């Protein structure tokens, strides 16, 4: 095995081009487990922890660009005001030890359907910036996940950052598990309201082969809010509207039975979480 340790982003891209099977490593919270248990013996590890460009957070025109090696701990301490949904989700990741090492870039690289960062990124219409020696491109988050633990990266590409809009309205995140800490989601849900863009965002975790949006639920609620002028006069939402939204969220999932829970339980939990998350978010909005 080789241990590649580039110091700069161009060096990292050159190393990945030369060693397309090299496994990128930052926090190690996924990769090291596989090595420790002999589940994987890559030809090379590509340690990106020395690449300072990847640890940067930049702000421009109402958007935040978060480098791939920014840890969950930093998202909680530095970005909770701008990206509240992602910060909520980050607080549910593992333990303090894990949050000091784990990164959203790593979550995207692993592309687990249960990755905690994915639902808020989906609900916020984030874009994943990837690069290779051939150049860089931006992949909309809902085109990034291509299958169970698979993503849209080419073999020579690395994740540089994700870019997402600074929240313009309330964002919520819910996660079901056997305890509050150290839990892989049985299922999870992010909901975001963008009164300026008149958008409702959703992201479902751990209830389909990939994280995914509940597109119909978003469109239904946007139409309901628009048709009653509720963005400008935010009255309480009808119970029937909330119930329909929650049903559409649950219906957008395609869960399976596995060790963590049954498909039926996941659908039920999504219905409950969608009801609660929408109430929380809408109540927040009415108060502002």
């Amino acid at each position, binding site marked *: *095995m*080789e*241990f590649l*340790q580039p110091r700069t982003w161009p060096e990292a891209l050159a190393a990945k081009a030369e060693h397309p099977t090299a496994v990128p*490593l930052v*926090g*190690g*919270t996924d990769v*090291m*487990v596989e*090595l*420790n*248990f002999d589940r994987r*013996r890559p030809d*090379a*590890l590509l*340690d990106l*922890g020395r690449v300072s460009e990847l640890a940067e957070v930049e702000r421009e025109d109402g958007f935040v660009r978060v480098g791939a090696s920014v840890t969950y*701990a930093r998202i909680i301490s530095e970005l909770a005001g701008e990206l509240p949904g992602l910060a909520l989700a980050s607080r549910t990741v*593992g*333990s*303090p*030890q*894990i949050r*000091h*090492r784990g990164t959203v870039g790593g979550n995207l690289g692993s592309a687990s359907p249960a990755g905690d960062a994915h639902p808020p990124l989906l609900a916020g219409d984030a874009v994943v910036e990837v690069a290779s020696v051939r150049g860089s491109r931006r992949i909309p988050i809902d085109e990034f996940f291509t299958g169970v633990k698979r993503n849209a990266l080419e073999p020579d590409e690395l994740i540089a950052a994700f870019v997402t809009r600074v929240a313009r309205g309330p964002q919520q995140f819910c996660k079901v598990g056997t305890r*509050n*800490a*150290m839990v892989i989601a049985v299922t999870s849900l992010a909901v975001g309201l963008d009164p300026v863009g008149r958008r409702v965002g959703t992201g479902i975790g751990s209830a389909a082969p990939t994280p995914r949006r509940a597109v119909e639920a978003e469109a239904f609620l946007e139409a309901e809010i628009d048709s009653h002028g509720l963005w400008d006069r935010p009255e309480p939402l009808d119970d029937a509207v909330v119930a329909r939204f929650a049903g559409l969220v649950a219906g957008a999932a395609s869960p399976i039975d596995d060790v963590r829970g049954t498909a039926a339980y996941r659908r039920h939990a999504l219905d409950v979480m969608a009801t609660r998350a929408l109430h929380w978010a809408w109540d927040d909005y009415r108060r502002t």
Partner: protein
Amino acid sequence: MSAMRIGCTINGRREEIHDVWEGESLLFVLRERLGLRGAKNACEQGECGSCTVYLDGLPVCACLVAAGQAEGRTVVTVEGLSDEVSLHPVQQAFLEAGAVQCGFCTPGLIVATHDLLSHAVRPSDAEIRERLAGNLCRCTGYEKILVAVRRAADALAGAGVPIDT
């Protein structure tokens, strides 16, 4: 390139470790190459916190840090918290409170508690639970562990002992 040489500072001492395998963990280096057996090898997947050490001042699971990532970094293990003469107040509190049963989780809990008390003077129980959530005690001796954390907090607050890592 095969088998690496790594230099880092561990408990204040500059160490050079030779013939390190590229996929080796920092935990393996500490325990098997340097004989620092405080950090325990339990789950090897970041679930239990028994191998918690400071890496550049942040508590992390040593089993999830590749040895090569520690190159040039500063590591402090549970052994590095006490001086030659006396235990650190956090270690002393665990002893006095009877917060040690089989002892396997203890080094990780002590490092995690040390970190907690370097950020919070008298943490609430909820704060203690959240900050120690990544450290499992299979003897389930959590009540005494909470007693020990409160005791250590009192000792440090009372003595005005600053914690620095």
